[in-house]
C-alpha cells in the first residue's frame, strides 16, 4: 500500500472555544483526491480532543483520526506542536504532510520541513500528483503571478485557506489516541489579549466587507459593520484607514496587512492602490462601491456601484437583509 497522507487539522483556540477550522476540511479534501489517485490512506492529526471536528474529518475523506491530548499551554505553541507533528510523521512516514497556510500553519510546516529535510511548498492554492511527488500552484509577488512548483515526495505543503472548497467523501471512522512527546519550554505564553470585539478571522472568511478612507471618518464605520453583518461577512480596512487610527492593524488588507481570498470581497470607499490589491486580488468575486467611476478598484472588480457610501451602504444592508433573511 502506498505511503499515507497526513494532514494537521488546525483548531481555533482561545475565547472562541475549540472548533475545527474549515481549512482542515479543505486539506482533507485535497488529501483525499491525491490519496485516491495513489491508492493511499488519509490520516489526520487532531492536536486536541474535538468530537465534532473528528466527525467532520471523517465526512471529508479522512480514514483515520489521531487525537492528541490538548497541549499544556491550552493553545497552539510551536514548541509543543512541532514535536507532536514530527512524532506522527516519524511513525507514519507519510508521502505528504498537508497543513493550512495560516500564520500558525506556515510556521509549523516550515519547522517540520527544517527538522525532517522534506521539500516544502508554502501557500499552495492547488496540488496535483506529479512523477515522484507533487505539483503545486502558488501565488507569488503578492498575487501578481502564479508559479507552478514541483516537489519530490516525501513533502510538506501548506495550503492557502479558502482556495479549495471542502467536498464530502464519507469514510468509516477509525480513531486512535496518541501521546504528546515531551515539549520544549523555551517559549512560554505570558499573556493572551483577546480582540476588543469578536472578530471573524479575515484570512478564513468567505465574505469580506472592507472600508477605506472614503468612509470619511471612524464615526461612519458602523456602515461597514452593518453591511458585514447583513452579509454574514468579516470586515477589513485599507491601510489609509489603519494609519489614520480608525481601525486596528489586524483588520488591514494588503501588502503590509493580510492576504485574503474570500469568495466575495466588497470594497467600499477604497481607491484600489496596488498595495491594497496585493492583499485581495485572489478573491473570487469583487464588488466595489466608490463615488469615483475612474477609481482603479473598478479595474479589478466584477461588479461596480458608482455612488456615495453613505447612501449606498445602508441601502445595500437593508436590501441584503430582505434578500438573505436575518444573518
Amino acid at each position, binding site marked *: 500500500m502506498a505511503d499515507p497522507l497526513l494532514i494537521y487539522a488546525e483548531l*481555533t483556540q*482561545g*475565547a*472562541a472555544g475549540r472548533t475545527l477550522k474549515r481549512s482542515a476540511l479543505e486539506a482533507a479534501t485535497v488529501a483525499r483526491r491525491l490519496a485516491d489517485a495513489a491508492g493511499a490512506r488519509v490520516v489526520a492529526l487532531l492536536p486536541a480532543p474535538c468530537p465534532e471536528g473528528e466527525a467532520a474529518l471523517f465526512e471529508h475523506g479522512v480514514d483515520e483520526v489521531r487525537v492528541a491530548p490538548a497541549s499544556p499551554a491550552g493553545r*497552539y505553541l*510551536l514548541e509543543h506542536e512541532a514535536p507532536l507533528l514530527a512524532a506522527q510523521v516519524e511513525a507514519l512516514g507519510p508521502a505528504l504532510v498537508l497543513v493550512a497556510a495560516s*500564520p*500558525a500553519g506556515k*510556521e509549523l510546516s*516550515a*519547522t517540520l*520541513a*527544517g527538522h525532517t529535510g*522534506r*521539500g*516544502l511548498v*508554502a501557500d499552495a492554492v492547488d496540488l496535483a500528483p506529479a512523477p515522484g511527488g507533487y505539483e503545486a500552484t*502558488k501565488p507569488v*509577488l503578492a498575487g*501578481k*503571478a502564479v*508559479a*507552478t*512548483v514541483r*516537489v*519530490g515526495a516525501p*513533502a510538506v505543503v501548506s495550503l492557502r485557506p479558502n482556495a479549495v472548497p471542502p467536498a464530502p467523501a464519507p469514510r468509516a471512522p477509525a480513531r486512535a489516541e496518541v501521546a504528546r512527546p515531551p515539549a520544549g519550554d*523555551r*517559549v512560554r*505564553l*505570558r499573556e*493572551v*489579549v483577546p*480582540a476588543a470585539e469578536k*472578530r471573524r478571522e479575515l484570512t478564513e472568511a468567505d*465574505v469580506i466587507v472592507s472600508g477605506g478612507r472614503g468612509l470619511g471618518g471612524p464615526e461612519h464605520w458602523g456602515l461597514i459593520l452593518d453591511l458585514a453583518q447583513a452579509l454574514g461577512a468579516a470586515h477589513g480596512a485599507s491601510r489609509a484607514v489603519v494609519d489614520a487610527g480608525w481601525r486596528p*492593524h489586524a483588520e488591514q488588507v494588503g*501588502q503590509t*496587512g493580510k*492576504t485574503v481570498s474570500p469568495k*466575495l470581497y466588497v470594497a467600499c470607499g477604497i481607491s484600489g492602490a*496596488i498595495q491594497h490589491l*496585493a492583499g485581495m486580488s*485572489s478573491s*473570487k*468575486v469583487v*464588488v466595489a462601491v466608490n463615488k469615483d467611476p475612474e477609481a482603479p478598484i*473598478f*479595474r479589478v472588480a*466584477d*461588479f*461596480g*456601484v*458608482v455612488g456615495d457610501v453613505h*447612501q*449606498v451602504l445602508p441601502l445595500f444592508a*437593508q436590501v*441584503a437583509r430582505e*434578500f*438573505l433573511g436575518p444573518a
Partner: protein
Amino acid sequence: MTTPPLKTLVCLKRVVDTETRVRVAPDGREIDLAGVQFIIAPYDEMAVERALQLREAAGDGRVTVLTVGPEAATKELRSALAMGADDALHLVCDGRLDAAQTAALIAEAVRDRDLDLVLCGKQATDDDDAAVGPLLAAHLGWPCVAFAHALDVEGRTAVVRRELDGESEVLEVALPAVVTAQKGLAEPRYPGLKGIMAAKKKPLESRRAEPPAARTERVALALPPARGALRTVEPTAEGLRGLLTALRDEKKVL
C-alpha cells in the same frame, strides 16, 4: 527593564520592487527583469530597524546584516549598513534558491557565530513563502516566533507579541532565538547622507556559497487569469437586489 546589548543578525533579501509590473520572462519560469528596480524586502527592512532600535536602547551591541543572493545584492547590504548596521555578510549565489536551500546556507554560515538573536522578515515579497525564518530556527535548533509585531528584550528573554486567530499573544522566548517581523514591528528609517558615507567604510564580507540540492523546482510562472468585464450596478434598491441575485444564483458566492 533595560535592554541588554545584543549580537543580532538580520537576514535580508534583495527582491523586485513591490510596484513592479510583472511580465513573464521568455523562459516561462521567472519574471522579466528588464528595467526592474530592486529593494530590500519590506519586512526585512522593518527587522533591520528594530535591531537598530534595540542596539540604541542598550547603548551597545552589534547588528550584522546578511544576504544570500547575486553580486548585485551588495547594494541592498550597503543600504542596510547606511541605515546603521555594523557589518555585513554576503553569501554570493546566483540563480533561484528555494527557502530550504536559503535557510541551509544561512545556518551553515552563522552556526559558529556568537549570536543572541536572528531576525528575518515574515516573508520575502517575491516568493511569499514565509518559511526561511522557521526553517533556519529548525537548523540552528533554536526556538522561533514568526509574525512578531512587537519585540523587546529583557535579560536573556525576548518578549514577542503576535496575532493569532484574532487574539494577540505575548510570548517569552529564551535567547538565542529566531523572530520574524510582521508589520508594526518598526518603521524603517531613511539612511541620511552621513549614514550612506559611513556605510562605504563598514566591513562587508563576501564569499561564494554552494547551495545544497533543491527539493523543489519551479516549472512555470504565469500571470493570473484576467477578470471578466466590469458589470455596473445602479445604486438603487432594484440595482442592489439584482447584484445580490447575481452573487447568489450566478456566482454562487452568497
